[in-house]
């Protein structure tokens, strides 16, 4: 096994493994400190970055961080690596890759072309050498467009997941929250509900209600009930109206076992949903959520830092050509991401790394009450992500998710981003909003027929 060393100032630092280099090079965060993997001093951290800068990218093809034999995520990454796409980068170090990504040579077309040649570990490594502005600048150049009933991710567009959760899954309560979101132009990425009860009957009822709403209003959107993928497969088999199977995923086989999934069951869900042919403009059907720290919390991190493992989760996601992927960046808690600074950095890393691997990345810009963060930090992160070209963000009424007890963005926040950056929702949804007199961009808006909408949503007296 090779060892690595670098001299920073007067001091020489030695690293026994590639995983130790990656962990020490990572910007400070509480989860790596909790795992005992973080740099011991600030100089130690920078020394690890010197090592990374000179490390050939090919090292990541020879040194598996998690053993190939015992981890199907490693096997997926190595077995699907595209050597032809990697060829233009094959002679580069991690530092060279950083310079190339920031150069004009790396445009949208070439970035798309090299993506299959990059492994998650290479992408994690280069992100550790990049400042926040670098993460924004390169992510902005990546273009990842996906389609189901509308087109998500075009330049100049910002989509939103409308998250109308209700603590008792009350269908009328859910409808009121959806109405609130539609009035503010939200919902084109997905109308996605986290159910309070995961029973098959309950999830099917919510799916049917959402589907009826879509049909009644002829809305070019997709819906999702975020229950376990095995339940969604059962719902599909029973004839339920499933647009998008959802699953939380992580970057090691053991952590995915903790989520009750493996690659085979994700493949099964993807095929089952595609076979329904419910998409009108495309057939990207999977919806994945991720978040730094999940493997550590499941005791399945193999001594690897949480950000590198997060990017391996994107390696899982890209095998299924998903419609949507988002990190739930501030949800996991302060023992993994302590404060606003750490959450902001992680949000930018996750977005950049996902985009560079070719994923349609969104971010749940969010926090819990025991994280050292507030709405000002979320304002900063969402504004930076809009500058970085994030595909979608998540919105709940008044920023308060009353079912999951955490704070995400409000519908007004997405409207602020669109106004400030001159962005529009997905083109099909933008046209629908105009038809419904719900469009807000470009001058004073007409008022919609609200009583008619309420009546059709089953909300009238």
């Amino acid at each position, binding site marked *: 096994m090779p060892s690595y060393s670098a001299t920073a100032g007067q001091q020489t630092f030695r690293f026994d493994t590639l995983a130790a280099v990656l962990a020490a090079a990572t910007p400070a965060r509480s989860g790596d400190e909790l795992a005992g993997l973080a740099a011991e001093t600030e100089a130690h951290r920078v020394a690890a970055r010197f090592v990374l800068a000179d490390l050939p990218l090919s090292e990541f093809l020879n040194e598996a961080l998690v053993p190939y034999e015992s981890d199907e995520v490693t096997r997926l990454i190595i077995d699907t690596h595209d050597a032809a796409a990697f060829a233009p980068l094959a002679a580069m170090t991690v530092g060279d890759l950083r310079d190339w990504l920031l150069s004009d040579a790396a445009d949208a077309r070439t970035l798309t072309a090299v993506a299959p040649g990059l492994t998650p570990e290479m992408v994690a490594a280069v992100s550790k050498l990049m400042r926040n502005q670098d993460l924004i600048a390169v992510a902005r150049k990546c273009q990842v467009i996906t389609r189901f009933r509308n087109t998500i991710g075009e330049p100049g567009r910002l989509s939103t997941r409308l998250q109308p959760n*209700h603590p008792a899954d009350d269908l009328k309560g859910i409808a009121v929250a959806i109405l609130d979101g539609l009035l503010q132009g939200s919902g084109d990425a997905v109308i996605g509900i986290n159910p309070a009860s995961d029973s098959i009957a309950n999830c099917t009822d919510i799916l049917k209600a959402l589907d009826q709403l879509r049909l009644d209003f002829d809305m070019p959107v997709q819906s999702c009930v975020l229950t376990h993928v095995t339940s969604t497969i059962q719902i599909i088999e029973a004839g339920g109206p499933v647009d998008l199977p959802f699953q939380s995923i992580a970057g090691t086989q053991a952590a995915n076992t903790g989520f009750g999934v493996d690659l085979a069951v994700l493949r099964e869900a993807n095929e089952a949903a595609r076979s329904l042919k419910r998409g009108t403009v495309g057939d990207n059907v999977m919806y994945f959520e991720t978040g730094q720290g999940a493997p550590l919390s499941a005791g399945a991190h193999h001594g690897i830092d949480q950000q590198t493992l997060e990017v391996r989760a994107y390696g899982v996601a890209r095998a299924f050509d998903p419609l949507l992927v988002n990190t739930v960046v501030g949800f996991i808690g302060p023992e993994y991401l302590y404060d606003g600074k750490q959450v902001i950095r992680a949000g930018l890393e996750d977005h950049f790394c996902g985009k560079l691997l070719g994923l349609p990345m969104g971010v749940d810009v969010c926090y819990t009450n025991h994280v050292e963060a507030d709405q000002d930090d979320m304002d900063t992160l969402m504004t930076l992500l809009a500058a970085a070209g994030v595909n979608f963000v998540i919105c709940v009424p008044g920023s308060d998710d009353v079912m999951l007890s955490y704070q995400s963005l409000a519908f007004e926040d997405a409207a602020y981003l669109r106004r400030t950056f001159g962005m529009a929702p997905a083109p099909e949804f933008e046209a629908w909003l105009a038809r419904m007199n719900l469009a807000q961009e470009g001058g004073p808006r007409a*008022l919609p027929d609200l009583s008619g909408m309420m009546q059709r949503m089953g909300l009238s007296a």
Partner: protein
Amino acid sequence: MTDHQRPITPGADPFSRLRAMTPSRVRLDATGNAAPLQAVLDFQLSHARARDAIHQPADWAQITADLESLGGLDLLHLKSRAEDRMVYIRRPDLGRQLDDGSLTEVRAAAPATPPDLAIVIADGLSASAVTTHAARMVGHLKDALPELTLGPIALVREGRVAVGDAVAMALGAPLCLVLIGERPGLSVSDSLGAYLTWNPQAETPDSSRNCVSNIHGNGGLSYADATDLLAYLVRGARNLQATGVALKDDRPKGKLIGEG
């Protein structure tokens, strides 16, 4: 209501009935402007209350006085290995362990005959929850379970649920009940949780506990209802010699109680 929003039914806000259908902070305003200042400040107040509940210390003197007024209870004042709130929040592992001095103290206080039930009060993530509700719940439980011997009541600063395992083991108690402040949400910041563990061990998995959560006065479980349920679960645990997934709330019209 803004001046350019036309009422749909003259003289009535058509949305007030809709707002009552969900606890969400729905706005239902078609004008699409920035969030109204009132809503912004309401949100900030809710967040401030939650933050204060997490970061202010519990009023241990008040809790002690309330417990002493119940009569007949010995008290132990203990600490976890997390020396302050900042460490507590960053290091969940330390909040699950008793510090050395506390462990010595519990061992010294262990009665000759092991008690049937060890009750542990830990601040967790809500000082206001334990200050307001914990001693009162102990009073209710004491009355509801007269057949049980209780060890000394342990008050643990900077404690997480699993710190109760160490206390119960040191006391030799086969059953442990931890009353702990739950992570505050925006709408409720003083919610108490109760975790019941049979045969507590060093590495007890959460699936081996029963949890009764949402004990608070803002639409949550009342002391009486929480006590009924906990007394039922305590007796069930003693009969079954187990807690966790095997132990259910199967009272008539009851609901399933999930593991903590």
